[in-house]
């Protein structure tokens, strides 16, 4: 096995030096270690929770949208009370140790796209995101460029994602916060008549639920980018 690897070490971020360690990081470690020593939880609890939380993807959100597309009564419940309707697909926002959330007690709102209204979500203050249903946010969602510009020039930002909306479509930007999380319910695309819920869920990708893309009948997030 070769012991060499070819890449530019200069391009790497330097390893954190002792002088860069913050007191908050030290405090976090101290609190965690004491809690474990006192038996408040175990190191295995902590490791399992971290691994589980980081593995949540957008499939929960996809299921919600697909079910709403085929079940009008469910759609009504989802739009009326997102947190409660999530339980029907096995996501409990209030129970971090069940099948639900890696975080907080928040209100969860599902925003329905229509031919006249297109919704898109952002968190201008930091990076609030509906993680129980969409998993971890993409890197670009957390960038200042996206956060700052979407609220001022939404059409311009959406166009950078390749999404060009006509002047007859109203664009609504929803700013997430500590208490409220949002997810977009895109419109069901043409060419999906008669599809099963599972087939539909496959085309409801993360970006369509953020609102920077529209679902297509011929493309899923697991497809090769050149497919369709």
């Amino acid at each position, binding site marked *: 096995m070769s012991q060499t690897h070819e890449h530019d070490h200069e391009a790497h971020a330097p390893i954190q030096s*002792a002088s860069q*360690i*913050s*007191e*908050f*990081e*030290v*405090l*976090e*470690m*101290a*609190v*965690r*270690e*004491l*809690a474990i020593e*006192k038996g*408040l*939880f175990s190191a295995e*609890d*902590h490791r399992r*929770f*971290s691994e589980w*939380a980081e593995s949540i993807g957008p499939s929960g959100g996809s299921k919600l949208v697909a079910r709403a597309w085929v079940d009008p009564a469910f759609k009504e419940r989802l739009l009326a009370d997102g947190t409660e309707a999530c339980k029907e697909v096995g996501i409990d926002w209030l129970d*971090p*140790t069940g099948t639900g959330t*890696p*975080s*907080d*007690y928040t209100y969860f709102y599902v925003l329905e796209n229509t031919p006249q209204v297109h919704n898109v979500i952002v968190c*201008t*203050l*930091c*990076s609030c995101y509906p993680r129980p249903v969409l998993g971890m946010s993409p890197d670009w969602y*957390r960038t*200042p460029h996206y*956060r*700052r510009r979407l609220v001022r020039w939404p059409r311009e930002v959406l166009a950078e994602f390749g999404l060009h909306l006509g002047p007859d479509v109203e664009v609504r930007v929803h700013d997430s916060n500590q208490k409220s999380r949002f997810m977009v319910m895109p419109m069901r695309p043409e060419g999906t008549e008669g599809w099963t819920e599972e087939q539909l869920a496959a085309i409801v990708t993360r970006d369509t639920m953020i609102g920077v893309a529209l679902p297509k009948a011929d493309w899923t997030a697991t497809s090769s980018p050149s497919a369709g």
Partner: protein
Amino acid sequence: MTSAPYRVLLEALDPERRRGDGLPDLERTPDPWESRMQATCECLSWRGTLDNLDRRLAEDALGETTYHDFPVHARSVVVTAHELLDRGAITEKELEARIAAVRARLTRD
């Protein structure tokens, strides 16, 4: 929830990082310890020591009063520690000693 600050927690605030009056820094990227802290909070709630909702309410209350000078991203760790001290789950002496021990480990050459 008590409102008096714990000295050991006040000492964690670097005067250079004191919270300003302006908007939070948009360019800031969360540190890895913040994810670990979130997992700690969830485990404390899961195992019944500190309910998430109680913690969030304490963060709002103490973050704007007792620990107002701390940056917002530090609220979870400072307030969780405050609540554990309040509830007698850990003592100031233990926390102080552990902070010193952790710092010594991380800064060892």
